[in-house]
């Protein structure tokens, strides 16, 4: 690590709030990443008749456990569970539901309040709120991460080309951007949603299509400024090729500005996904999503555990990202490095 980056890392660590937020976020992300092992309606491991079974990673037929029909095993079924427990044991994940499992043994009508089975209660279809939160959190973060990486790559590339070559390329590029960014994204999404059922990937592509402009301005400005710096001029006078010039001298400059924005871009990506889900134009019905839970919370105000849980989860996620973003911004602020 160059001394400059070392100093930045040092400054980032000195911002306690941002540093703790980063660790907290990483913990939450790494915990929810293997969500199937945390919340699932199939056991992690089964010992049956001297053999080991792993239902989380592989589907088994009921026949293997002495059932009557050749259908995939329902481990929550008391009959099947009884059969397995007779000749072995089952190891359940901490939350024995996945995001779509309906708890059919509710003591109260759904949505049911928190109990020792459903720690955060269930939603109006009897699905476990905590399990849905875990899966929803994972989808949101992954979506945000992918969208951020993709928008950054495209945005930086477009900004770099415009800023480096300037002139006509810049002029045309800027006008195209202005036209493109005035397309109403939401209406386009509604139209597309009426033609195809939007999936994770379709949503990603559409949001990317209309969201990649976020970083262009910053990178372009940074390139316009930096291409006349003395050390870039010196490299040019040495005969360094354009491509090397961009990658070795100009991009590191622009990356500072870009990195500052990345956490905030991610925040906005997650917010967009949540908003679309809330409106019903997002992920297909039934999938785990924070936005869909917000809308459930709104429709079931008398069941406050839904709304409060999802609010806390969203607020935590977005605040952590904003705190990280602030710490990063302070750490790489060029006015302080000079």
């Amino acid at each position, binding site marked *: 690590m*160059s*001394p*400059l980056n070392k100093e930045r890392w040092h400054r980032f660590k000195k911002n306690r709030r941002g540093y703790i937020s980063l660790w907290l976020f990483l913990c939450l992300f790494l915990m929810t990443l293997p969500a199937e092992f945390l919340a699932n309606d199939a056991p992690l491991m089964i010992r049956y008749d001297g053999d080991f079974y792993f239902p989380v990673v592989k589907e088994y037929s009921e026949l293997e456990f002495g059932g009557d029909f050749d259908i995939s095993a329902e481990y929550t079924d008391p009959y099947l569970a009884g059969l397995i427990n007779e000749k072995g044991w089952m190891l359940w994940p901490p939350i024995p539901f996945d995001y779509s499992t309906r708890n059919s043994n509710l003591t109260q009508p759904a949505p049911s309040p928190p109990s020792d089975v459903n720690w955060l209660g269930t939603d109006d279809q009897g699905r476990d709120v905590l399990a849905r939160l875990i899966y929803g959190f994972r989808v949101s973060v992954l979506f945000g991460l992918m969208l951020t990486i993709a928008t950054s790559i495209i945005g930086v590339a477009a900004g770099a080309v415009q800023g480096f070559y300037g002139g006509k390329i810049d002029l045309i590029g800027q006008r195209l951007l202005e036209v493109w960014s005035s397309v109403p994204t939401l209406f386009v999404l509604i139209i597309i949603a009426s033609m195809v059922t939007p999936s994770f990937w379709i949503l990603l592509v559409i949001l990317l299509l209309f969201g990649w402009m976020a970083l262009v301005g910053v990178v372009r400005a940074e390139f316009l400024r930096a291409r006349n*710096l*003395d*050390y870039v*001029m*010196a*490299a*040019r*006078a*040495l*005969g*360094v*090729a354009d491509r*090397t010039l961009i990658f*070795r*001298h100009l991009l*590191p400059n622009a990356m500072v500005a870009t990195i500052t924005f990345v956490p905030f871009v991610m925040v906005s990506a997650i917010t967009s996904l949540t908003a679309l889900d809330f409106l019903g134009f997002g992920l297909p019905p039934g999938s785990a999503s924070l936005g869909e839970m917000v809308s459930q919370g709104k429709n079931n105000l008398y069941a406050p555990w839904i709304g409060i849980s999802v609010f806390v989860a969203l607020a935590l996620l977005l605040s952590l990202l904003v705190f990280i973003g602030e710490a990063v911004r302070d750490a790489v602020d060029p006015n302080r490095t000079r």
Partner: protein
Amino acid sequence: MSDVVLSIKNLSVAFRQEQALRTVVEDLSFDLLRGETLALVGESGSGKSVTAQSILKLLPEHSAVYQSGSIEFGGENLLASSERALQRVRGNKISMIFQEPMTSLNPLQTIEKQLFESLMLHGKATQRERARPKIVQWLQRVGIQDPQRRLSSLPHELSGGERQRVMIAMALVNEPDVLIADEPTTALDVTVQAQILRLLKQLQHDFNMTVLFITHDLNIVRSLADRVAIMQSGKLLEVGDQTQVFASPQHDYTGMLLSSSPGEPPPHISDQSDVLLKVEELNTWFPIKAGIFKRTVDHVKAVNNVAFELRHGETLGVVGESGSGKTTLGRSILRLIESRGFAGYGREQSNLFELDRKALKTLRREIQIIFQDPYGSLSPRMSVSDIVAEGLRVHERLTASEIDERVVAVLEKVRIDPDARHRYPNEFSGGQRQRIAIARALILKPKLLVLDEPTSALDRSVQKDVIELLKSLQSEYGLAYIFISHDLEVVRAMSHKILVMYRGVVVEAGSAEDLFTRPTHEYTKTLLASVNSPL
């Protein structure tokens, strides 16, 4: 004459850095006498500006710590005064002018308003209409032409010299007892500098004012100051009568500072050596565009019809004020800026301006440039060895160990410890950085170096080292230099031939000796005069 106006006793100032304190001014004491000019002299980082700003407690409060000492003025200790009391002193009893006239005026307000403000703040005026005659009178006094009409001008409508005049008017409108001038002419051209210095001297005489003049330019000190105080790394080395200090310095460092003229003129080169570069009718024009179709209506003739010849081992000095086109000339020859004309290079006399990309790339290694700002010209993200080796990686196919060998060799040539090659530029001083920049150019074994004010950002003593290095490299490798500078002493020490540029045109050209001893053009004469005696 000899009563003390302001007295600094045992002043120590430190800056808070992380947890530690870094002392920048240490145990400093001197007195300012009524009506005198005291010049505070020192190299960059010696603490002279910090001293000046401490007097009015202008240093940033959260980082500066006044460790000890007192600053007595009018029976009060300024360091112990309340902010309110200080506000009555600032701009009223003690005024200050700063180095950069561009940034020390508010760009959004008229000069009348800014002048009125300093009157109003100290209760000397309440209505702008009533204050107007006084404002006009002061603008006239500082030499602004047609002051009545200029009242509503904004700072960007004024030239650099005029801005500094307005700054002086603002500082003096309340007729202070003490004026602190922090390098007030460093950002100005020499001819303008002379006018401003004359003005300051006149005003000081008229108002019997005490001036604390901070500078690093010894020519100014010699012609302006009554007494001199020499500072080095936060400590005051000596204070004394100007003539006495200059004649018999008490301290070694003072002697070194006074004697560090940039050196003797270079040795003659033989008339037989071949012509390396022959430039004719070089024009660099920037179009001025107007209208919706951006038609070119006129041109800014940054470099207009310039011609010269340069032989192997020869230095061509290019002299001129800011905006005269000397930097553009240098960059045009490197084709960093597009221009027209003829620049025959080498034995084949191929025109530099008509080369295609490929031919240009091979020539890039023979023509190199060194920039003014040693801080900006090295990428902060690359290690010294990467910076120096960059040209090699472009032009030659070498293994990593061969590159390393060449880097070590060239760093030794410019007297940088090769063991330090894996460090980053921020660990080096200005002079060392400039050497690294020279090493970067030198590693390709160029034939022509364009030196764009390579010593202007450096202290006098460091300047001398760099110039000696450049000269020894020239005699060793037969390099040809195009040496661009506004500093005539440095140019004299470097150049065989000189071009004097004024507004894009060469007004005088000839051998350095002739030009310095027998200038013919009026502009050259004023330029030389204002350097030799700034007053």
